[in-house]
């Protein structure tokens, strides 16, 4: 076959070009550390790398979100911790106020102490984060949620609960509304509440009672009326919620102090000696704020007792107050345990997120990073080829018959 002299040169030049291009590509890979320099180097991996980069960035963002949530949850938790110990103090004071040997002035001293506690509690409930946003105002973070009004402590926030995206598919509540924490606490035993009529003169004190058969509960208001005739105390039970006229469920029941009174799935007892005409009401539990519980206690302690009389009222009020304080403590502790669980979950999510991040980084590295061993060995090989091509080219190009003419 004939070879044209041009072919010899052209072929060699293009071979040298190709080898230099490859060498440059490898050199660029090594100097940038990336296998994929442009999308065309590996379109599938490049597209995949974009996706993984986004996933990784979102994962990083979730970690930031978690940090923010952890911050607000910790703030709420430490505030509620203070509330817990405050309520325990209030409880201790309320128990000591039941001491029968106390004079009116002793009770007033305790009342004064409780007033201070109440103000402290209001301050805690109006806590803010570092930026002046109220922790327990629902969505209205710039509105002071708890303000004393003539009608008692008012709540000016809302029920809003802020959520945060703490994982790809997990939204977590990062706040609790003040209404849920401080306002919405069921009084009585959570189902019904017994209360002595204010006009009672006897020494009868009703217990908080309990539910014995939930299926029979009606949610109605009842009244227990005591009659003392010829030294015998009887009582009647009336359902005041039936319309148009109240229904007398039972009448003439013999009364004995401490004996269970039960009807419509509820059971409680009355201790002491009710006077003729004394009455107790039984109504479904309603929401009572912690503030009202404490201010009711203060009001009860501030009410002077005439000799002997009114002791039953005080005992009833203290019992009721203590019971509601327990309910409030329960509510705060429930909220705190929910905060704790969320903080734990954040820790768990944090660990999972870090693992995930590691995986994403690894995946990205596999997709787009250069394998140095391979790249360096390629470089050496390509270098050798290029050198060989250069050497042989100069040899071959030097062969000419004209040299001998």
């Amino acid at each position, binding site marked *: 076959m004939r070879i044209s*002299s041009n072919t010899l040169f052209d072929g060699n030049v293009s071979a040298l070009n190709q080898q230099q291009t490859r060498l440059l590509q490898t050199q660029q890979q090594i100097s940038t550390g990336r296998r994929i320099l*442009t999308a065309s180097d590996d379109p599938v991996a490049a597209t995949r790398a974009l996706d993984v980069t986004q996933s990784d960035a979102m994962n990083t963002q979730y970690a930031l979100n978690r940090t923010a949530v952890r911050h607000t949850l910790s703030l709420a938790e430490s505030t509620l911790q203070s509330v817990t110990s405050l309520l325990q103090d209030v409880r201790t004071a309320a128990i000591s106020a039941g001491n029968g040997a106390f004079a009116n002035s002793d009770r007033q001293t305790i009342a004064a102490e409780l007033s201070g506690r109440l103000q402290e509690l209001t301050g805690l409930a109006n806590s803010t984060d570092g930026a002046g946003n109220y922790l327990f105002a629902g969505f209205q973070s710039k509105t002071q949620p708890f303000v004393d009004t003539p009608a008692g402590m008012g709540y000016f926030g*809302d029920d809003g609960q802020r959520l945060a995206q703490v994982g790809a598919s997990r939204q977590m509540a990062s706040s609790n509304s003040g209404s849920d924490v401080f306002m919405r606490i069921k009084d009585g035993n959570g189902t019904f509440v017994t209360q002595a009529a204010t006009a009672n003169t006897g020494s009868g004190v009703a217990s908080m009672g309990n539910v014995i058969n939930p299926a029979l509960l009606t949610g109605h208001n009842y009244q227990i009326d005591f009659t003392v005739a010829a030294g015998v105390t009887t009582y009647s039970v009336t359902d005041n919620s039936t319309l148009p006229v109240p229904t007398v469920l039972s009448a003439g029941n013999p009364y004995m102090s401490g004996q269970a009174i039960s009807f419509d799935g509820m059971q409680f007892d009355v201790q002491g000696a009710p006077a003729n005409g004394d009455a107790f009401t039984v109504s479904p539990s*309603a929401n009572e704020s912690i503030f009202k519980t404490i201010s009711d206690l203060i009001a009860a302690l501030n009410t002077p007792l005439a000799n002997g009389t009114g002791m039953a009222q005080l005992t009833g009020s203290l019992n009721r107050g203590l019971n509601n304080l327990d309910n409030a403590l329960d509510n705060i502790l429930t909220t705190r345990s929910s905060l704790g669980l969320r903080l734990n979950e954040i820790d768990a999510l944090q660990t999972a997120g870090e693992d995930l991040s590691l995986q994403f980084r690894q995946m990205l590295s596999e997709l787009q990073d250069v394998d140095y061993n391979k790249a360096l060995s390629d470089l050496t090989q390509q270098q050798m080829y290029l050198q060989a091509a250069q050497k042989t080219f100069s040899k071959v190009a030097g062969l000419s018959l004209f040299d001998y003419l």
Partner: protein
Amino acid sequence: MGSNLFTSALSGMNAAQIGLATTEHNIANANTPGFTRQEVLIGSRPPQSFGGSFLGQGVDIVGVKRIYDQFLTTQVQQEQNQASYLSTYHSAMKQIDNLIADPTAGVSPAMQEFFNAVNGVANNPESVPARQTLLGGAQFVTNRFRAIDQRLTDIANGLTGQITSSVNTINTYAQQIATLNGNIKRATAASQGGQLPNDLLDQRDQVINQLNKEIKVSVQTQTDGAVSVFVGNGQALVINEQAMSLRTIQSSSDPSKVDIVYQSGNNTIPLQQNSLQGGNLGAYLAFRDQSLEPARNALGRVALGLAASINQQNQLGQDLNGVLGGNLFNTAVPRADKGALNTGTAVVSAAISDVGALTTSDYQLKFDGANYTMLRLSDNTTTNLGATLPQTVDGFTVSLTAGAAAAGDTFLIRPTANGARDIGVATSDPAKIAAAVPMRATAALTNIGSATIGSGTVNTPLPLDPNLQASVSITFDTPTTFTVTGAVPAVVGSVAYTSGADISYNGWTVQITGTPSVGDIFDITQNTNATGDNRNALLLAALQNQNLLANGTIGFQGAYGQLVGEIGAKAHELDVTSQAQTNMVAQTVAAQQAVSGVNLDEEAANLLRYQRAYQAAAKAMQIANTMFDALLSLGR
């Protein structure tokens, strides 16, 4: 007899001289592009009858011919054409490949940063710095979109220049071929015995080869030696000594680009653009129409999708001032250009109706005198729109703004072409970010039952219900039914209650779960002072990984990734095929050069051969001379 000796020797010297001249010509032109080596054709002279036997008379030069293979030459031209098409397309593609997939400069990191800022607002809805960061992120992402679109526009503008210069080059070559045709015809006619002007033929082949690098042509050789050259669907570029020309004009369907037309005398004849294939020009057209514009459309769709989705969600919310949310982004309006050949007066406009349904294609709206049809150009799917506009196709609505269309009128609709160019940030007020939801639900503190109410959501799609923020009370008249006050239209009578079921009035939806008691009240009210409400911000942030585009099949990042993938794959394909084609060309050229190329060693050998032949003939001459001298000396 003596004179015979001289004639023979002289003819030998002549032949050797011509041989030397041809060899030197070959050597001199060894590097001339398109040169084919030449060879002297010699033959022995007819013998002279001499005493019953024939005596040789020397040598005759029959001619000089070029060593040429028509088949190989044509093959080189064709492969060359394809190679320049592929390599030009590849280098054009490289420009956008580098631009779009860059992990630091593409749109991807900007979108990520924007959504990170949205998350920041969701974490701290009352924080003005967080909101300012979000606006900064929005500015960043729109800048990225616009910068990339600007770069694509620059490339497109550059292409227009390249197309024009390629067309000029083609015209120049056509002119050269026409001139060479004339020269070749005259030279052939002038030579006796049909000798061919080898070097002119080489030159013409070379020009045709160059022309093939610009555009695919077909060549026919005429009997008189002239060639005819055709482009496209058989339009003659060169006939005999006459050259026609191509010209660029503003496109009839899209004023921003140029079309190529055929100029014959004073007539301008439109060409089917996709019939112009191969070569640099074919590559420019293919790159522009099949890669650059689809890339811009795809980028525009991501921009439109992002802007419109964020706007919609923001409008469903309430901003820091307690006002209903507005637009955070300015969005592009689809382009609607009327065809240059339209005879009607119709002006057509288009508007996006659903970003989720948009494709990346362009559309052609056509009126046949009675009905409109919409042709999707990416896959040639036709939708009949009936006799009247407005009509909605693939997420956009076309309307007749003014005038009336005539039969045969066409309009080019490009729904997403300007998406990336025209995206912008609509507000500089950080308070305008609607992080809150316009309504909230509250359970009355006096409630006795255990039922709770969720925070509620606003019904989609837009527009918002005008009574969304009106106060509504849900009051339980029995544990299983409730009455509603404040709803529009008013709700008469009791509504049955199911725990957890959707309760929807005035454009919102809430759920009440648990056991309510008689008299329990739930209020849905305007969300006043809701600086800490991040419900809508969470929804804004959640848009990031929702599949909102292409009928709910891909998200923003996915759509962008698809664009990167398509461009990368095309560039990769072109890289491989152009490499292969370059090798193909090298092989074909080597085969052609094996026949026609000059081998210097061979020519060196020929030099010696003819030198020796000349010396030998001269020696023969000398001998004849000596013989003659001897003869003359006899008479002394």
